[in-house]
């Protein structure tokens, strides 16, 4: 069968698509914060359609410097993320069903662009959240903005903030890398076949 | 806490183990003034006078009436809660006959230096065993103690 997938690739893609369902029951992203008076740290977990952790405490602290209260309603993404991930899963399963290399390629491209879009979206939210400060804030530090890092660690006044993937995020990354690996492996299988 | 220590201290004394105050395990000589103070040899030679700054008392006859009067007032304020004027023991022994039993120096040292007396004087310790309550330091000056002594003499029928 021309352009059809190796059985291993096919199973891998199917597993990847199913693995994506973890996004519905594991947190995708985490923001951790420490300050001298918060040695145990504060955390915020971002889920597919929700926020958990010390969101209220973080908002209460941030209001001193004029940052807006973090609320689920702040993120329109939460309304359609569940469908987006559903579409991703569907495409993955379809790719396995179609069993063609182009389908796998399509899956990988959609997956990568979805990840990238999420990161850009997160950056844009962070920029807005960190820069658009209430002019009536009690504490105004000249020239200071409070954009959280996209990935990694950053010092924001007395807080050390860390941002990075959580369980669901890691699974997503593994899925991206694995399906990309499958794509690369397909090239290898194809060469072997043609020889 | 201090009081428990005091209680323990008394308990220890009852069992005749050691008349010393409870010691801390480590030695801090400068804080143990009372204990490290050597007992003057004179007192050891002359146990009937007790331990304290009163070495000798001159008694006059007839009694000094102004001293008797003051002594009576001090008795009522600081002593009468525990000592009766007859021979009955209340908390401490009754005072009747005391000036016949004890030397005047012993009485005055007991009144003015009671803590050391109860720790080191054998006669005072015998009284503690009998009465079970440590005689309190009533902050009586030497002069006041002399007045009390004069009052005791009157109580014992001297003129």
């Amino acid at each position: 069968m021309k352009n059809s997938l190796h059985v291993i690739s096919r199973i891998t893609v199917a597993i990847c698509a199913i693995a994506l369902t973890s996004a519905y029951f594991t947190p995708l992203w985490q923001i951790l914060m420490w300050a001298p008076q918060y040695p145990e740290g504060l955390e915020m977990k971002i889920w597919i359609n929700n926020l958990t952790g010390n969101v209220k405490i973080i908002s209460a602290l941030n209001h001193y410097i004029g940052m807006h209260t973090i609320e689920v309603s702040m993120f329109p993404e939460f309304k359609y993320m569940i469908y987006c991930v559903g579409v991703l899963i569907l495409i993955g399963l379809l790719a396995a069903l179609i069993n063609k290399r182009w389908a796998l390629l399509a899956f990988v491209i959609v997956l990568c662009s979805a990840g990238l879009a999420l990161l850009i979206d997160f950056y844009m939210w962070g920029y807005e959240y960190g820069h658009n400060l209430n002019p009536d804030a009690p504490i105004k530090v000249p020239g200071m903005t409070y954009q959280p890092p996209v990935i990694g660690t950053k010092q924001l006044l007395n807080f050390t903030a860390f941002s990075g993937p959580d369980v669901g995020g890691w699974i997503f990354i593994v899925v991206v890398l694995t399906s990309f690996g499958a794509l690369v492996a397909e090239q290898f299988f194809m060469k072997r076949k043609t020889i | 806490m201090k009081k428990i220590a005091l209680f323990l201290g008394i308990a220890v004394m009852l069992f005749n183990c050691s008349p010393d105050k409870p010691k801390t395990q480590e030695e801090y000589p400068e804080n143990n003034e009372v204990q490290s103070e050597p007992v003057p040899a004179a007192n050891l030679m002359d146990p009937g006078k007790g331990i304290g700054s009163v070495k000798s008392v001159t008694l006059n006859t007839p009694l000094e009436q102004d001293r008797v009067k003051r002594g009576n007032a001090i008795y009522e304020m600081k002593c009468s809660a525990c000592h009766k004027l007859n021979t009955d023991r209340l908390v401490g022994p009754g005072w009747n006959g005391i000036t016949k039993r004890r030397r005047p120096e012993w009485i005055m040292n007991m009144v003015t230096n009671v803590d050391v007396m109860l720790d080191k004087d054998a006669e005072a310790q015998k009284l503690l065993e009998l009465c079970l309550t440590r005689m309190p330091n009533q902050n009586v000056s030497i002069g006041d103690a002399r007045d009390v002594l004069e009052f005791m003499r009157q109580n014992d029928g001297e003129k």
Partner: protein
Amino acid sequence: MKLNKIISTATALGVAAVLFSSCKPQGPQAVTTSGAAEKVYVAPGKYDEFYNIVSGGFNGQMSIYGLPSGRLFRIIPVFSVFPENGYGFSEESKAMLNTSHGFIPWDDLHHIALSQTNGEHDGRWAFCNANNTPRVGRIDMKTFRTVEILELPNSAGNHSSPFITENSEYVVAGTRFSVPLGENKDVPISSYKKNFTGTISLISVDPKDGNMKIAFQLLTPGIDFDLARAGKGPSHGWFFFSCYNTEQAHTLLEVNASQRDKDFILAVNWKKAEEYIKQGKGKKVSNLKYAHNSLDEKTGVATSEMLNEVLQLDIAELKDLAYFIPCPKSPHGCDTDPSGEYIVASGKLAATLPVFSFAKIQKAIADKTFDGDYSGIPIIKYEAALHGEVQKPGLGPLHTEFDGNGNAYTSFFVSSEIVKWEVKSLKVLDRVPTYYSIGHLSVPGGPTKKPYGKYVIAYNKITKDRYLPTGPELAQSAQLYSIDGDKMQLLLDFPTVGEPHYGEAIPASMIMPNTQKIYKIEENQHAYAAKGEKYTKVERKGNQVHVYMTAIRSHLTPDNIEGVKLGDEVYFHVTNLEQDWDVPHGFAIKAANTAELLIMPGETQTLKWKPQEVGVFPFYCTDFCSALHQEMQGYIRVSGASSNVPLTFSTGKVEAEPSGK
């Protein structure tokens, strides 16, 4: 083969993920310093080097700790009742808590000021403020007892208090809340700008006996006074107050009082005020009502008198009396250095720490380098008064104390640290974290002309994980740091009671030799004292029954009392006949709705008891006094209202026939 590859790739990815996630930064680690234990260890039988006299905050009391051990020795009740020793419950002490609003059993004690002579501690008195119902209290450092409480009229929120001048001429009391004063106080809250006034009371302290009196009151614009310090040396004669809410907001101050880039330090020339008073410029206001309570040390009885007059000066009307100095964002601490030349103001929301120069302030006043006025009071140009700013000192500066070597120590609430900097050069020298979110800090002798130095103590606002947890409510946390070397060194964490705000430390040698050990029974002038068992008695005055009782190891006299009837009020006046140090007796009676008495040697205290039912009620000594303490007990018989049981009392009397029915 290929499967292996995939598995190994997945494994590698997994490992990478774990590695990456372990790169997450850890929370700040507590610094432990070696050799710290030795420096704070006070061996059994040894004494601490300093007394640390600390406010109890919302417990309304003052606490006494030892330094460097951090051990708590005593809690002195001041503005709150204290059932532990009967303060506020006994007939003698009740009057101490009297106010123009009646008896008030609680307050919020924030700051301590130890009396000074020539700008140095003299170890005589400790003053403290009641923040809620405005009052100032005085504690005698010989007896560690509250001996005087003065209520402040025209005041609300006595926070800017009780800071003291270098010869204890005055203790100051500035209002945290401005309120409407005068005849018409029933005004809309929204008319704040028009109707609300602040006041600063200067309370004179009698150099002989410490008695307090409101010398005069300054009327100020309706803003909030936060903290203050008196000048010293060259600046003696001046007082400096930090002010916030110059926006004059009356709601949501968190936002509305934080809008201006600069609030003010108010510099007050109190010597000038004295001149105005001498010239008769003080306006007498006499429709007031405020309590002055004092303890008569001869009788041990507190009395309360109601006063109704103060002299007032309006700082906007009188010239050369007061000046505003702009200060970044809501200044909190306002501290003068030992030389008296520098005034450190901490804008708690500001990014820099301004230091003002007294000489420059004087020059600016002389040259009239003003920047307009605020409510009629000249504003000195910021730059003209400024010695310099400490750059990037930390976040949320609150308070500053000083050592004797030209260094300042500032507490930073937000960044939770103490920063050491040099006053002259404004250079930051060192910083240490505090656990957590420090409020006030204290260097022994820090507010005087000659600080003793050696330590800085951090009084923190957040405790969290420092001690074994005790449910939602935790002990407060303090830390002791050594400041002997170039680097501050954490020595000790110690829990504190209440919520300590400010505290002062004073060498033990200045207090210890003067401590009073007993009250001399000869000098006891209490009207109901029984100075000897001969004088014990029970007297009936209408429905009042007065028991003149004595306590000595180990009996109460009388210990059998009969003839009390329902409807009677029984007053137990208990005199402790002991004359030895550390032999208090306690007194408690079943069903008393007050508290126990704790009677020091030679003292008389009174417990009022109103029996509610017929029966025989026991009373006993509550303080373990001797081997026979448990035997120190007695009975009182309560008969029906119409009973004719005669009033009798005795100790040690055994009757063949019981009296009564």
